């Protein structure tokens, strides 16, 4: 019963499936290293905009790995991507538009 279970996923059999476990460990180590890097970079006291971009790039890479590998987004179906892209668009809207509007306000 367990073997048939494994077939439903794209991996063929438990042994086959075990080979795929390797990538999770790789991602795990990569995440720890990137965390160390981002903390290390923060000690360099870079100027404000550079520090923000570096930290954001590292965080996005880490997030990409978690989402892509751990959450199997790489092999996910089209309908999930459609929802996520729509959400990403509105996420950016809610993140940036209020600040732009307040920044440009004519308050003296």
């Amino acid at each position, binding site marked *: 019963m367990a073997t048939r279970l494994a077939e439903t996923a794209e991996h063929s059999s438990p042994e086959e499936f075990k080979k795929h476990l390797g990538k999770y460990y790789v991602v795990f180590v990569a995440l720890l290293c990137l965390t160390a890097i981002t903390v290390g970079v923060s000690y360099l006291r870079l100027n404000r905009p550079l520090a923000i971009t570096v930290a954001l790039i590292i965080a996005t890479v880490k997030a990409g790995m978690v989402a892509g590998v751990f959450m199997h987004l790489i092999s996910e179906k089209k309908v999930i991507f459609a929802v996520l892209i729509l959400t990403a668009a509105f996420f950016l809207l809610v993140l940036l538009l209020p600040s732009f509007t307040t920044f440009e*306000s004519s*308050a*003296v």
Partner: protein
Amino acid sequence: MDETKYGFWFPPDVSVHGRQIDSLINIVHWFMLLLFVGWGAFFVYCLIKYRARPGHTASYLPPKAQFTKVIEVGVIVIEVLLLFGFSTPVWFRYKNHPPTEKDALVVKLVAEQFAWNFQYAGKDGKFGKTAEANISADNPVGLDAEDPDGKDDIITVNQFHVPVNKPVIVQISSKDVIHSFNIPVLRVKQDAVPGARIPIWFQATQAGHFELGCAQLCGLGHYRMRADVLIDTPEDYAKWLAESAPPPAEQPTSAAPENPQSAPQK
């Protein structure tokens, strides 16, 4: 106050930029009426002509209707015209080309729960520094007593004297909640947001006694947050300035006219 001039449609317009706003509103309403009557006529025609009655059956095929596309494009064209032909130019000119502080009367306004406190620079043309710390019942704008510029400042509560035919800049702020500086006859409205000082300007074209109201809900006294707007001829304005100027130096606190409002409750 001449009550007869207020009716169902626009109240009198006594500001320079008011004419553009009124014309835009009128044009938009003509466009709306045109659309509504056109739609309405076709709508009623369909209801009558295609009502169910013996011998009349519905037609399965949709009518070949090109004219809806024409109407659609027409609506889009008119909206673009309204937007970039009328609204944005008026708004850009209003926001980006205010009168310079040199030739305009600058008035600082601090709205509070249920009263408007106006601060005029007085003869020296300079405003005294104000700080929230020294706001009290008889010092509503928190004028700094030691500051020499502030000695001749005139503080009025719910009395807004403005010279006619002269640009006026009002720097609007609030000390507690959001209010909204609204003078319908001058076609002026601006939220008074605490923590920010937002300038607006207008130029009155006609002397008279008008009203200023609060347009943003600000608590239980929101409805009675009314002030008198007195657009004076130059002589009257000069006379008022002289009368209400605080007596020179030895009087430290500004002799603001007694605050008619009782201490405003929260």
